[in-house]
């Protein structure tokens, strides 16, 4: 049997964490290829629903990575994210998933090495936890979610009334 390779989603803010991940590249710092980064303008945009969506879809772990505390480009988006991540951890636990599958990190865009370390540590941690129970059982995890096709309420361009 091949070794379990965790699939980890990283929700990174544009200014700091995503920049740090780029810097890890420029510095050619090697880390395991298990993390896939999704860029957001700010971790303040991270919704518990996004995190749960990832788990529901079979992600084995989720990282939320924002600016250093006090260094958020939008004042305190990362602090809001921190609270939401805390809440999401509780929901995970209540759903029967390990809270360690989700973690928030703070780093500046100059911390390329740190990003690589985080990727290494989290990959190891999730590897130790094993595959997400959602993936194993093929069961459904529905906490807060929506249909990806449900765009009806979303806005299209400038048409929406403001």
């Amino acid at each position: 049997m091949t070794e379990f390779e965790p699939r980890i989603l990283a929700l990174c803010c544009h200014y700091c964490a995503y920049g740090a991940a780029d810097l890890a590249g420029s510095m050619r710092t090697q880390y395991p290829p298990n993390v896939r980064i999704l860029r957001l303008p700010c971790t303040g945009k991270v919704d518990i629903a996004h995190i749960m969506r990832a788990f529901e879809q079979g992600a084995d772990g989720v990282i939320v990575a924002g600016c250093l505390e006090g260094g958020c480009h939008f004042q305190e988006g990362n602090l809001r994210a921190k609270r939401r991540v805390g809440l999401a951890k509780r929901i995970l636990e209540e759903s029967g998933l390990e809270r360690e599958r989700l973690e928030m990190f703070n780093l500046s865009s100059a911390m390329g090495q740190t990003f690589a370390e985080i990727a290494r540590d989290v990959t190891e941690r999730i590897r130790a936890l094993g595959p997400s129970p959602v993936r194993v059982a093929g069961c459904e995890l529905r906490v807060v979610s929506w249909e990806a096709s449900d765009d009806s309420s979303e806005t299209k361009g400038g048409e929406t009334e403001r």
Partner: protein
Amino acid sequence: MENRTAQPNSVPTGAVMVCGGGIGGIQAALDLANSGFKVYLVEPSPSIGGRMSGLDKTFPTGDCATCIVSPKLVECARNTNIEILTLSEVEEVTGDAGNFAVTIRKKARLVDEKKCNACGDCERACPVRVPNEFNRGLDERPAIGRPYLQAVPNIFTIMRREQSPCASACPLGQKAQAYISLIARGKFDEAAAIIRETNPLPSICGYVCHRPCEAECQRGRYDEPVSIRALKRFVIQQASDGASPSTERRAEKVAVIGSGPAGLGAADWLAQRGYGVTIFEALPVVGGMMRMGIPEFRLPREVIDRDIAAIEALGVQIRTNCAVGGETSIQGLLSDGYSAVFVAAGAQASSSLGIEGEDLPGVHAGLAFIKKANLGEPARLGRKAVVIGGGNAAMDAARTARRLGSDVTVLYRRTRREMPADPAEVQEAIVEGVRFAFLVNPKWFIGRDGRLAGVECIRMALSEEKDSSGRRRPEPVPGSEHIIEADDAIVAIGQQVQPDFSRDVDLTLNRRGLLDVDPVTLATNVPGVFAGGDVVAGAGTLSEAVAAGRRAAESIESFIRGEDMAAGRAADPRLWDEERHERLEQAQRRFPIERERRLSLPQEGYTEEMAIQEASRCLACGVCCECMECVKVCQPKAIDHGQRDELVRLDVGAILAAPGASEFEARLRGEFGFGRYPNVVTNVQFERMLSASGPFAGQIQRPSDSEAPKRIAFIQCVGSRDHATGRSYCSAFCCMAAIKEAVTAKEHDPGLEIAIFYMDIRAFGKDFDRYFERAKDEYGIEFIRAIPSRLIDMPGSRNLRLAYVTSETGRQEREFDLVVLSVGLAPTDETRRLAEKLGIELDPCGFSQTRSLEPVAASRPGIFVAGVFQGPKDIPETVAQASAAAARAMELLAPARGSLVREKSYPPERDLTDAPPRVGLFVCHCGVNIASVVDVEAVVEAAKRIPGVAYAETSIYACADNSQERIKSLINEHDLNRLVVASCTPRTHEAIFRDTARESGLNPYLVEMANIRDQCSWVHASDHEAATAKALDLVRMAVGRACRLLPLTTEMLPVVQEALVIGGGAAGLTAALSLALQGFKAHVVEKENRLGGRLHHIYRTLAGEDVQSFKDRLISEVEAHPNISVYPGAEVVKLDGHIGSFTSELSDGRVIRHGVTIVATGGAPHRPDEYLLGRDERVTTAYDLEERLEGGEIGIPDGGTVLMIQCVGSRNEERPYCSRVCCSAAVKNALRLKERRPDLNVIVLYREMRTYGRREQAYQRAREAGVLFIRYDDEGPPAVSADGRLTISFVEPSTGRQIELPVDLLALSTPVAPAPDNERISELARVPLGADGFFLEAHVKLRPVDFASEGIFLCGAAHSPKPLEENISQALAAAGRAATILSRKSLPVGGQVSVVDVRKCASCLTCVKVCPYGAPVLVGRNGKTRVEIEAAKCMGCGSCAAQCPAKAIQLQHFLDGQIAAAIDAMAEEPALL
């Protein structure tokens, strides 16, 4: 002020040159470009970013410097109206304010800016390592690269200095540094190839070259030169064989006479180019002097054979036993079909002494003697032999004679020092038992029985007079004749030409008996006949002969082609420049004795390890060694070693100089041992150590042993406040920087012990004192007020023992593991040169000369200054000053605003209504950067099956111009409506692809990138399979998102091009006047009935300028200006709206519409109830004292005492901030007092003198004038009693003694407090206040005059207390920033902003609480309330969307469905590759 309203006569040019790409220059450039001016940003280094890009954190907030500066750099690079000219310097400035013509020298980058895509392949190929200047020498970098990873422009640069001395010294132009560097990296084949490029006899040279390179090697200045020859020998033996023969064959053939180095040199060159070459050699063996003149023990015969075989392999024919001059003749060769003849017959005859007995048997000609030995038929020698001469031939003869069994003595008429022989050879000879008799000259050879029996010699002495060779002339010492017994004498004093070859042609000989040739072409007087080597130059060296051969060969090719042989060539300096020749020879002789031991070492040759070690000693003098390894690996062909400097002419209306400053050269303070003690570093180095992207990846380590230090000392004021080194100013930022570095270090390692040795802690800025207190209390950093006197480097541990003196404890010593010198700012030669070119004055310290009330105007009209070039300051002040200077340039150029900027036009957007997504996917190879790890073809093939992908292909470089064109045409051809580019990071490249999309009629928001380079191939280089799978995942996520992306439109919001200025003091009026001069309307609201505010109470600046007349002029200009409306006695009571469109209501009912708001409400003087103020008329405040000093009598008896107490009511619990102005005000008043009444005693009681920047010089002047400055402790503040006399008592901290002083006048330095109105304005304008009650700017470092809410600015004491000149700077800055909005008729709003779905909104106001920008507002309509988000205020972070409990808010471009689509795509089971 006076030149301010004067407009230039002609229409000004709507462009500005900004000199300096540091944070100041960047800010100014952005402000100018964003308000309608073309900007040329001229930066001497390869990239912008300045000193800030090298910082780790910033004080006092601890923000990451990279995080905050990088977006600015990118913004600058993207701005279409900013042209960045890097590696550029101002050459000349002509013209006047409004119309300058500037010439710029753009230095060669040696890399094509348009082609380089910063992949970094060249960097890894480069074999050179030099100290990394960006990290201040803490690590090394290659010769090609970027100063730092986030550099903008993101282009590589080759650092190349003059050619390295080793290469310049080589007659063959061998690129010694190149092959040494390659050897150091273990690239032996490449090194050998470099050698072979210009050397046809590499193996031979590896043994017997006279190595002029080593004589010039700069490493020899420190210890010993790099053993270049030995390295060459090693690498040629090591490497595989060289070049294959040229495939090109030419019909022409050339004859070469002589198979020595000159002949072979020519033959090789010509054969490489396809000419048929025949060498005619008189002897039965090949190699000329190399075989005949050099003994085998020095040059093994197989080495000669190896090189010659390689030349023969090129097709060169060698005919031995074929002397030209007999049967074969030059004329005959020419008529035989040889196009040219090269005579390289050498100098075969030995020179004779011309003394009696020279023909006796037993006297041998040196050359003939060696020749015979080399041919295997050596002469038979007797017991004793003498050798006459001091050159290499003499050494060869002596060592050969020694091998034949004789006792050998060398007779030389000068001393060992003058011997031309290679010292190594001399040393070898000594080792072998050869004796030397110096200062001896033979007079005649004594014969006995018809054979040599001895030599009569005379002693010589060196006279002071020098001969033609520059050496001291030897003179015979009369009466010193003596006889040396000898059975044999070998005369090795020189060689001569035997012109046997020229029997049938009339070749001209010169007076030295050598062939006469053209010094450039080596052509003889007979057409088609060329000559070179010893036959032309006399006995020379191997490499010179080869060089002559190649020179002749080049001429021969031109001759054959009928071209001008001399075109573009210079005369051979080695042949004809005697002086240079001599210089090299002397350098040869300079080898110190101790070097000789080493020189004899590599006889057996190096091992690989030894060679690499030896090569690593190279200092890389030329930096780039021109090995061309980078050219080989550069796929976009961007590297151009032939690039030249360019002159660029710019027409600009104004010039803004913000070139910054360098740091003080720490070596100048020798007592701290910088540069000698390994564990003494500067604050700049320490900052780099702290940086996560620094040399040690954020680890603090000692340079000596890479250990983590436990005890660190900071020494402040190194090169600041230092008259001894001519730095009489305070550098203003170092106290805070040291605190920041100490705090950051503690955060890295809480166990660190850190002590800061200081004179005064100058924490004078906003929130600085709080930071200082936290450093002490929370981080436990020790602050020691002391004068460090000496630093001792401890042997063994390399710890440092610091001796220092404190006033309390006297002399002390303490040991530290690492010492950080807080070096201050220092103007550089570069900035001095710039000032000279710009024609502006500097102060004696080298900062630009400005006046306090005109803080950004240089001495020449039309030129403005900012940043530390203007004087020491920190980042926020620099940024504010930059905006201020920009504002002044805008005033000057107002009529030309918008004349030179361009807006790009795009085709109309295609209508995508109801169109299903058709994604075009482009997967970039990035040369080998992605493709060597990720199987890009496989990614494309797999991606084609992803729903929505209509077209997919790979691209070598997706960002290249031609790729962009292809993408555009494919979009049209395949009717694509989404663009996904899988390449590098969107942080740098998204703008490019968005532009591509727009150019093909697609909305820019329909572009998505997958970062498969920075976040995939670069970080998973060894796992190709996993990297490819991840790349496909990232592509799938991007496609998933792309399919759901929607076009976003921006609306144009009209701008009310008028400003509201709240406050009519110095700041408000200055801002309003600047805006008015720029052509905008300004409304000034002042709650008092008169304008001027605090200006009414200030009379002089510290420099002595008259403030009252400044005030009067300012008020009258404001009142007279038609663009300004003034509302005295009025207050703003209502303020609504947003950037571009505000509405305000005044207390008199008037309504003003405006596009921007400037808050300039000033501060309020705090009047404490302490020290009998208001109760005793002898107690006053500094302000009142100043007023009194301007008036009549001071009213103090002769010899009386005036005492000032600082920090009364500030830096206490109630007001924990420093009021910044009071120390300078005290100095100002003290100086004025001493000036008016020298008889008075003036005493200043202070806690810390915070006379930052150039104010320090006034503090110094005050002390010199006799003002007494006495410190008092925070613990024991002074007390006052009025028992008849006014008496001050306090504890003098250095003695601990209670001191009581009777005084006649007590002046209290009281702080500036926040204006009482601040809270009301804060609520009105919805802008925040800081903890001390002053307004809080958007970002303390980079947005010092902006509020977080767009369109609202602040300046002056409303921001924090500051002196008048800084208030003026900030006010101008606010005007400059405001102009970026007011200069537009309309602003685009929308795009990536949040919107509310009114059907879901429950008006819970969560979003209102969450948003830091006040964008969501509650509106009532038709009796119902709901929330709207004002697009103009929304910054697009999405916090409200994530927080909204009803999910009623969505952030455009990051809709939940879009994010979910990407998440779902990631989670899909990976498709089979």
